[in-house]
C-alpha cells in the first residue's frame, strides 16, 4: 500500500500544508496565479528549500539522496526543457512494445522519435515530457497544469493515460489545474491554495 503525505510543510508564505494521498488516487490542486502551487510541487520534489516532512510510505524525503527521491517523486513542470536536437535522443528505452503502446495512447507513433525538438508545439512537449518522466517509473506524479495546452480530445486521452499508469504501477498523483470540471472528473480529493493555506474543497 503506497501513500504519499506531507506534514506541516512551510515554504515562502505558505504554511502548515498537510495532506495524504493513497495509491491510485489523484489530488487536485487549484488556486490563483502566484498562490504558490508550482512552488509546492517544487518543494515536494525537493527542488526548493522548505521546512516540514514529506513521506513516501515510510521513506522521509530528507533521508533519501535527492536524485533518487526525484526519480520516485517526479515533477512535470508547466514548461519542459530539451537539450538534444531530436526527440528520440531523450529516450533510452524506445524499442519496447510498452513504449510504442504509450506513444499510441497519447496520439503519437514511433516515427515521432525522429522529430526535431525545435518544431514541437507546447502541447506536444507536455505529452512527450510526461513520457520522458515515466521512464524512471515514478511512484508519485507531480503534474503542473499538464493539459493547459491541449484540446479537449487530447486532454481526455492524457487523463486516461495517467489514470492507467497509476493503476498499473501502484502510483498516485498531484494534479495542478484550473479546469474545475476536469478536476472533479479525475480527482478523489480537491484542494484550494489560498493566502498561504491549503483548503479542502467538498
Amino acid at each position, binding site marked *: 500500500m503506497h501513500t504519499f503525505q506531507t506534514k506541516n510543510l512551510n515554504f515562502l508564505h505558505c504554511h502548515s500544508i498537510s495532506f495524504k494521498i493513497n495509491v491510485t488516487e489523484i489530488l487536485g490542486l487549484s488556486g490563483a496565479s502566484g498562490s504558490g502551487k508550482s512552488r509546492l510541487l517544487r518543494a515536494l520534489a525537493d527542488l526548493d528549500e522548505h521546512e516540514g516532512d514529506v513521506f513516501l510510505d515510510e521513506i522521509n524525503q*530528507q533521508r533519501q539522496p*535527492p536524485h*533518487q527521491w526525484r526519480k520516485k517523486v517526479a515533477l512535470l*513542470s508547466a*514548461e519542459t526543457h530539451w537539450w538534444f536536437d531530436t526527440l528520440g535522443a531523450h529516450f533510452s528505452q524506445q524499442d519496447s512494445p510498452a513504449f510504442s503502446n504509450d506513444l499510441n495512447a497519447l496520439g503519437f507513433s514511433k516515427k515521432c522519435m525522429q522529430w526535431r525538438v525545435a518544431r514541437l508545439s507546447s502541447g506536444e512537449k507536455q505529452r512527450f515530457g510526461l513520457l520522458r518522466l515515466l521512464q*524512471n517509473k515514478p511512484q508519485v506524479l507531480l503534474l503542473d497544469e499538464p493539459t493547459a495546452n491541449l484540446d479537449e480530445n487530447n486532454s481526455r486521452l492524457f487523463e486516461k493515460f495517467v489514470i492507467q499508469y497509476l493503476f498499473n504501477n501502484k502510483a498516485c498523483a498531484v494534479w495542478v489545474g484550473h479546469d474545475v470540471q476536469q478536476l472533479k472528473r479525475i480527482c478523489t480529493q480537491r484542494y484550494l491554495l489560498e493566502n498561504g493555506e491549503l483548503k479542502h474543497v467538498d
Partner: protein
Amino acid sequence: MLITLDALDLSMAALLVLLLGGLSAYMKLGVSQQLYIAAARTTVQLLLIGLVLKTLFASTSIIFILFISFIMISVAGWEILSRQQRKLKGWWGFGVSTGSLFVSSFLITLLCLFAVVQADPWYSPQYAIPLLGMLLGNTMTGIALGIDRLIQNAWQQRPQIEQRLMLGQTASEAISGLRREAMRAGMIPIMNSMAAAGLVSLPGMMTGQILAGAAPVEAVKYQILIMFMISSGTGLGVISVLWFISKRLFDERERLCFKQLLKE
C-alpha cells in the same frame, strides 16, 4: 645592436590604443574605460619592474623571493576575479582562484626548478621569477575564461539544469556538459599557442634569447619546456577551479543555488 625606442615611437603606438578606445566608445562596446586603465597599468607596472628587476635578480634571499611569488600569485588571483561578468563572493572566490593558481603555477614551477632546470641555488631569481611569471600570466587567462564560461552558462541554462534534476540526474550529471564546455574555453588560448608556435607566431621568450645571442636549439628547448608547463598548468588549474565551483553551484540537497556562489 639593439634599436632603442624613443618617446615618439611609443606615442605612435599609444595613439592606436586611443583610437581603439574612441571607436569602442562610439560603437557603445563598453570597453574603452577598461582599455585605458589596462594600458596605463601596463605602462606604470613595466616601468617600475624595469627599475627593480636588476636588484631582484641579484637577490639571494629565499624569503624575499617567496614573498615576491606570493604577491604575484595574489595579484593574479585578484585579476581572475575582476574578469568575471558575474562576481564571485569575496573571500571564497579569492581563495578558489589563488588556490587554483597555486596548484597550476607555483607547484609546477617548483617541480620544473628542481627536476629540470636544476639551477644553483634552485631558487635563483633569474630562473624562478620569469618562469613563475610566464606560467601565472597564461594560466590566469585560462582559469578566468573557464570560470566565466561555467557561471554564465549555468545562469543562462538554469531551466535546463533543473529539468535534468527533475529527471533524477545527480548534480554532477546535470552539469557535466557545462563543465566540458568551460574546460574547452579555458584551454583554447594555450591550444592556439601550441598549434601556431613556429608556424604563425614566434614565442617571445625564445625570440628574445636568440636575439640576445643564445644558440637557437637551446632557445627552442626552453620554449618547448615552457609550452608543456603552461598547458599542463592551465589544464590542472581549470580542472581544480571547475571542481570547486560546480560543487558550490548546488546545495547539500542537489538544488541549483547561486546565492552561495555569487554576490547579490
